[in-house]
């Protein structure tokens, strides 16, 4: 599916990561493999440290804290907000949806339209398309919330999924624009026949979670997991991305009338560094314009990797500069999404830390600057 939306701009992005840092080096001993081979894996994939929310902090807490930060700064106003779209794969409760929980947490006016989008890896691009559609339907301003929390606490024994997981939330504010250059082009593709390559088999209607589905077993590659845990056929996902993403971006560029070489930054979903380096090589673009440092610093945060990559790598530059960017995402489904637009001239572009303990009220927290968590100089919990 291809689509074009005129008259919409991304007015700002703010991403929030939990303060608690977990280091791969400390987790090596939990995996049923020799530490030497785990280190080799970490080196190639970029597993260094990741952020995981404490057990009292939910996807809605991370997201409401981010919204409150924007209200506090005056970058978002409750009386101007027309809709809040909450994209997540985990929910605070089975009923009601995250957007209703957040509406209550934030004390939003009754007329704000709140809706939930269940999505996985491509959630940011799907959510962006949904938000842009609302603007086209006549709304002035929409808050796109993407949040991922708790998904990765599930199975610390699985070296295939645990070290790359992270929690985060982000709010992307999408507004109406009169600038004729504010145009977004989208492309989406799905291959549901390959859905088993990335799946949590139990816990839904098809296979409710029971004591039996919770039983741990050792899989073909030596990892311990149960049917309640997420399973990934890494080889299949890798091949899917390598064969599908370059033609997808080619198709998007052709459709949008944008020369591929005009793309200044690729803001992609980030499952691991290795895949992104290979993807950059396949696309024939320098590895430094296709960012790959989210997993090593924060972990794969599903629908929040693109906002984290954007705020962490471009941050304040997006306040005064403008770049032609291509967003792309791929994963569970198996599904693919990409979008291109001019990004910049934003009112805000921040990355902040969540203090933990289910906090939703914003208290003074320092924005993380690029480089702060790189080169082993990790931001220490409590080191403010």
């Amino acid at each position: 599916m291809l689509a074009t939306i005129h008259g919409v701009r991304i007015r700002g992005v703010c991403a929030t990561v939990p303060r608690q840092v977990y280091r791969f080096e400390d987790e090596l001993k939990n995996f049923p493999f020799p530490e030497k081979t785990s280190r080799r894996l970490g080196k190639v994939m970029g597993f260094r440290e990741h952020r995981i929310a404490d057990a009292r902090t939910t996807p809605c807490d991370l997201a409401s804290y981010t919204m409150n930060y924007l209200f506090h700064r005056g970058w978002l106003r409750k009386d101007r907000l027309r809709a809040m779209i909450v994209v997540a794969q985990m929910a605070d409760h089975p009923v009601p949806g995250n957007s209703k929980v957040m509406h209550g947490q934030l004390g939003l006016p009754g007329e704000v339209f709140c809706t939930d989008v269940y999505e996985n890896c491509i959630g940011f691009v799907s959510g962006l398309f949904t938000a842009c559609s609302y603007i086209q339907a006549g709304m002035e301003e929409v808050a796109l919330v993407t949040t991922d929390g708790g998904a990765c606490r599930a199975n610390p024994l699985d070296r295939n999924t645990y070290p790359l997981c992270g929690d985060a939330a982000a709010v992307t504010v999408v507004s109406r624009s009169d600038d004729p250059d504010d145009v977004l082009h989208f492309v989406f593709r799905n291959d549901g026949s390959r859905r088993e390559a990335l799946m949590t088999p139990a816990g839904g209607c098809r296979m409710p979670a029971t004591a039996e589905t919770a039983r741990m077993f050792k899989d073909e590659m030596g990892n311990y997991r149960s049917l309640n845990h997420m399973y990934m056929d890494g080889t299949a996902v890798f091949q899917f991305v390598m064969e599908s993403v370059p033609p997808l971006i080619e198709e998007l560029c052709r459709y949008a009338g944008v020369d591929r070489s005009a793309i200044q930054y690729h803001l992609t979903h980030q499952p691991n560094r290795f895949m992104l380096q290979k993807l950059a090589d396949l696309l024939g673009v320098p590895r430094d314009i296709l960012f790959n440092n989210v997993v090593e610093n924060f972990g794969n945060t599903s629908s929040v990797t693109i906002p984290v990559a954007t705020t962490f790598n471009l941050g304040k530059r997006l306040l005064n500069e403008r770049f032609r960017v291509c967003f792309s995402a791929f994963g569970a489904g198996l599904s693919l999404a990409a979008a291109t637009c001019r990004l910049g001239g934003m009112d805000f572009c921040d990355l902040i830390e969540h203090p933990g303990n289910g906090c939703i009220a914003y208290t003074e927290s320092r924005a993380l600057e690029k480089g702060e968590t790189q080169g082993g100089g990790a931001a220490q919990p409590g080191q403010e």
Partner: protein
Amino acid sequence: MNLQEKLAALEEIMELDEGALQPETRLEDVEEWDSLAALSYVVLMGDEFGKKVSGQQIRAFQTVQDILDTMEPEA
């Protein structure tokens, strides 16, 4: 690639010393044969032989010889 080159390529993706692998080596005895080695093998097969291998094929490998048998250009 001759046999020695193929063994050397496999030793390289598993970060093993030269001569560590023999065709009859059982993969269950090689702790370096893990998901990363499998992924590196997938990349090698694509780059060197233009072949696509599935996770199912990889999980069926029992000995180094099983891997060597796949390391031929498409017929």
